[in-house]
């Protein structure tokens, strides 16, 4: 009889605890970063199978860090955001590259006068170049650099973080000169147009806090053959409860409480 009483008491206690937990949802801070690294194929091709494996990925990540320290790999970008769980954040680091998109092409000029060619220097009516001159009338700007837009959700009491990544790398490779028509004396108009290289990916991945994971990569031919790696890292820290956060937000004069070490993730 006493054991039955204890079982009922235990169940009630458990329900009460879970109810309290439901009322007091934890508040998490999540830091997400993506290291964008370019490695020559000689180093990169053997690294990818290791980065894909369960056992070798952390050692391969450490090796990439050593390659970066020795300048054997190039850091192309390292966007990072710190957000609350179930919220979104974004960051971009870019250089705006301007390029012309519309041009004013001169019409065929009509010459009024004696019609002699070439026009004598003394003439007041000098024919303009026909096709050689091209005047840009509108420009556009393209952002070159790295971008990261992300949303994080806490799963399994913080053991896992589900992250929506939307990240990209844009590079200016070159400006190409495209020849227009030449005028009668052989002067050609030139239109400069940029060639951009773009690497974008948008996976949803579940990571453990502190885990490093290859979220995407690609082999690129230009400007030199190389492998570009996107290495994702997530760190989740339990700050407290939402009610504590709301209480601290309602008191702007008081300093926000420091995160308790007893609440942080192991």
């Amino acid at each position, binding site marked *: 009889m006493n054991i039955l009483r204890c079982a009922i008491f235990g169940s009630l206690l458990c329900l009460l605890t879970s109810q309290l937990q439901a009322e007091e949802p934890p508040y998490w801070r999540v830091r997400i970063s993506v290291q964008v690294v370019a490695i020559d194929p000689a180093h990169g091709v053997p690294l990818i199978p290791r980065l894909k494996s*369960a056992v070798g990925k952390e050692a391969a990540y450490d090796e990439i860090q050593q390659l970066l320290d020795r300048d054997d790999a190039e850091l192309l970008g390292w966007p990072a955001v710190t957000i609350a769980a179930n919220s979104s954040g974004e960051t971009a680091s870019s250089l705006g590259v301007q390029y012309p998109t519309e041009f004013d092409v001169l019409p065929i000029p009509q*010459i009024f006068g004696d019609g002699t060619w070439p026009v004598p220097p003394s003439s007041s009516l000098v024919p303009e170049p026909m096709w050689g001159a091209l005047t840009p009338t509108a420009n556009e700007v393209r952002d070159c650099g790295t971008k990261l837009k992300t949303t994080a959700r806490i799963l399994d009491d913080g053991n896992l973080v589900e992250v929506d990544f939307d990240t990209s790398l844009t590079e200016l490779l070159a400006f190409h000169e495209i020849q227009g028509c030449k005028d009668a004396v052989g002067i050609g108009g030139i239109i400069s147009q940029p060639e951009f290289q773009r690497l974008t990916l948008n996976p*949803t991945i*579940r990571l453990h806090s502190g885990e490093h994971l*290859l979220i995407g990569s690609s082999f690129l031919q230009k400007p030199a053959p190389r492998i570009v790696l996107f290495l994702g890292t997530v760190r989740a820290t339990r700050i407290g409860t939402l009610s504590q956060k709301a209480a601290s937000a309602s008191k702007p004069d008081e300093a926000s409480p420091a995160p308790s070490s007893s609440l942080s993730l192991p």
Partner: protein
Amino acid sequence: MRALMTQKPGLRLIRRVGQMIAAFGTVALSSLILRAEEPSAKLSKTPNLTIDVQIVSLPTRVGIPLARSMMKEEEMEGAYQRLQELLAAGTAQLIGWPLITTTPRENQSVIHATNEIPWPTEWNAPGTPISFRQDPDSHSPRLAPPPHKDNGTIAAVPERFEMAEAGSILEVTPQISVEQAAVDLTVLVRSIGCLGNVTTIIDRGPQRDAVSAEQPLLEQTTVNQTFTLRVGEHALLGIAKTSTPPNSIRLAVLSVTSPEALPKK
């Protein structure tokens, strides 16, 4: 027995301790049951998958036998290893290698690795002027002299540009069965190469003057398939005969791995 227990305080203490242990045991058991029922706990068991497609160019003398081996299921893994050796030796050339890690889900995961090459889509083609007899006394309007010709053609003036994408694109929608470690995949792979620019005659003037414009020459291979693969397996997605380099074929080989330890099948 009951009377004996009520009389001895030591036994009563043991009984109380037993009751407390039973209560804590019930609490622990209930917590475990409640945790097991949380949907997030179930979700977290789904592993991430890494899906990549190696697009390689091989001389036909090596590529054709290798493609034949890859078509036989029992020879596929050996042929894949052979391909890696050919890549390391430089016999095979890597054209593209898009890779993406994703959680199995209904939505697509996409990786674009492309160059945006500008190419003109609209031109102002120069008109050929009508020749007038030179007459110094005439004051009638005259057209200007004709534009310069290169190799008998007049280059058109580009007025509007678009960007052509060249590179590799991988779109995947994986669904996994954890027990069987099998993955249902819907895969779209697109490999586009720019072989350079070609000069095309786009118009001819009234006096049969040719008007030319430069256009990019794009070579494209597309694969769109749905199939099932076990984690750790490879599959030959496509074979393409390409013009550059000469006497070569292009293979697209897909791999599915998991960066997490999966249960043994």
